[in-house]
């Protein structure tokens, strides 16, 4: 355990004075609530109100907010991915990944601390998402609905899994490609291509396996919350039935990414 904190402290020394890290982290911290506020403002003012009730319901009220904010934050997951790619490819550009090993780290220690950093960043962003949920939940609270509605808190966990999936894909591309610009390009290309394959597979060829592709399966953990009222209860129960499968496959992808990234770093020429 002492060794773990010692290694973590060294990673902190690398980040403490790195301005780009602080800028990108601040952008994430600001954008999650700001983007949610834009959506909140849009949903609140752009749809007709019937008997004082919004057509879309109250997506930013408890308990719906636990689903709405993570869903919106999910759209911004490319931001932490950019941060991860930047930090990891820096080690390659400066060749410090070699120097850290030469100076006395094992390859395993180096790659494991990077994976732990991804976990910690995911945890940090999840905390931002929770705070954003609480802010909007209390902002839209009415006297008749005073409680925080913890029953939908599970979406926070689903967000954690979704972000971990995205972040580990980013780490994987960073390690494989080694150059920041190219790795980001390939990462975005992959996201677009997967969405294209999913649309094509689902709508044209009527195949279901596309639902289990890495990005799609983690996206499916948090369904689109705004048209809840228009979707039939049957669809909702079908999603509920599939959640354990989506979750298991998303976690399986996380395990596979960790395994591949660790294995490759331990075996490759650095």
């Amino acid at each position, binding site marked *: 355990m002492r060794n773990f904190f010692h290694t973590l*402290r060294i990673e902190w*020394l690398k980040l403490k*004075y790195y301005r780009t890290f602080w800028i990108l982290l601040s952008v994430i911290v600001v954008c999650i609530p700001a983007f949610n506020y834009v959506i909140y403002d849009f949903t609140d003012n752009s749809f007709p109100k019937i008997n004082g009730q919004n057509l879309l319901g109250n997506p930013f009220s408890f308990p719906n907010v636990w689903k709405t904010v993570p869903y919106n934050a999910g759209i911004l997951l490319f931001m932490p991915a950019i941060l991860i790619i930047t930090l990891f490819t820096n080690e390659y550009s*400066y*060749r410090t990944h070699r120097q850290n090993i*030469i*100076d006395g*780290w*094992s390859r395993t220690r180096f790659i494991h601390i990077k994976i732990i950093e991804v976990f910690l960043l995911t945890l940090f962003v999840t905390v931002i998402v929770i705070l954003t949920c609480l802010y909007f939940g209390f902002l839209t609270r009415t006297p008749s609905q005073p409680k925080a509605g913890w029953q939908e808190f599970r979406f926070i966990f689903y967000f954690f899994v979704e972000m971990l999936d995205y972040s580990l894909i980013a780490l994987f591309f960073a390690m494989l490609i080694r150059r920041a610009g190219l790795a980001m390009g390939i990462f975005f290309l992959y996201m677009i291509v997967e969405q294209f394959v999913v649309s094509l597979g689902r709508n044209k060829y009527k195949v279901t396996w596309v639902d289990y592709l890495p990005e799609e399966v983690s996206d499916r953990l948090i369904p689109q919350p705004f048209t809840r009222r228009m979707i039939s209860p049957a669809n909702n129960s079908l999603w509920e039935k599939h959640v354990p499968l989506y979750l298991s496959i998303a976690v399986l992808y996380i395990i596979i990414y960790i395994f591949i990234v660790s294995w490759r770093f331990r075996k490759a*020429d650095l």
Partner: protein
Amino acid sequence: MTPILSLKNIDKSYGRIQALKGVSFDVPQGSVFGILGPNGSGKTTLLGIVMDVLASNGGSYSWFGNPPSEKQRREIGTLLETPNFYHYLSAQHNLEITAAIKQKPVADIERVLKLVRLYERKDSKFQTYSLGMKQRLAIASCLIGNPSVLVFDEPTNGLDPAGIAEIRELIIDLSAGGKTIILASHLLAEVEKVCTHVAILQQGVLIKSGDVKSALSQEEWMELGSADMEKLKEILDRLPGVNKIISSGNHFQVYFNAPAPDPGWLNVHCFEQGIALNYLQTRKESLESAFIELTNNVSN
């Protein structure tokens, strides 16, 4: 005595290109061990393997008589190829990372920065340093924690003549302090001045290894001149141990099978035979010529 580093049949290939072919040698304790070879001969690949940044395709190596480990590397100061530091951090902060990885006291940073004359620039970012300063910082990083073994790969790259001389002095001082130094270089003059032992690589093959004198035997000859060259030739022909005599204008080049005789004795000998020498010089083949001769012989 257990060698500091022992290599056994190290193989390494990059696709079809075999960078190292069955390289084996030992680095004795307390030596300044030069790894010599032209560019692309496999020197850096070899050091990359023993520092665990490259994976070998065969063979094994040991440090201090034990299988390699991260703990051992913390006791070795290594500069491999280029200085590798975080560009956005100052020298001080970069060395704090090195000290933390090596588990050495941060207090040692001041000493090593002063040693390489970078203390006044310790708070400047690495990216503002000149090539020579970067190289000196890398050497400072190697010296953190006063390791007993140092590995330098082309340590004088980017340094000016004064910087090269300084590093040479530093290596000699460190060696005098009992440290083992492994030095990869293609600069033979540099190696000649500091190394006690060498391993010579060519196209991934170890040509020779051992102490400098036996591995790179440098031929010696004498040059003699006199007003009476014919008489001098007669005397030299009768001299025991002479291998060949080459006439070179106003003097003879005399090569010996055994070590060349003492020039003082030779001068007296000629005088006793009735010849006064007007030119007498002992010559030695340069290390560069010996190296080229050796590598050419292997190529042929």
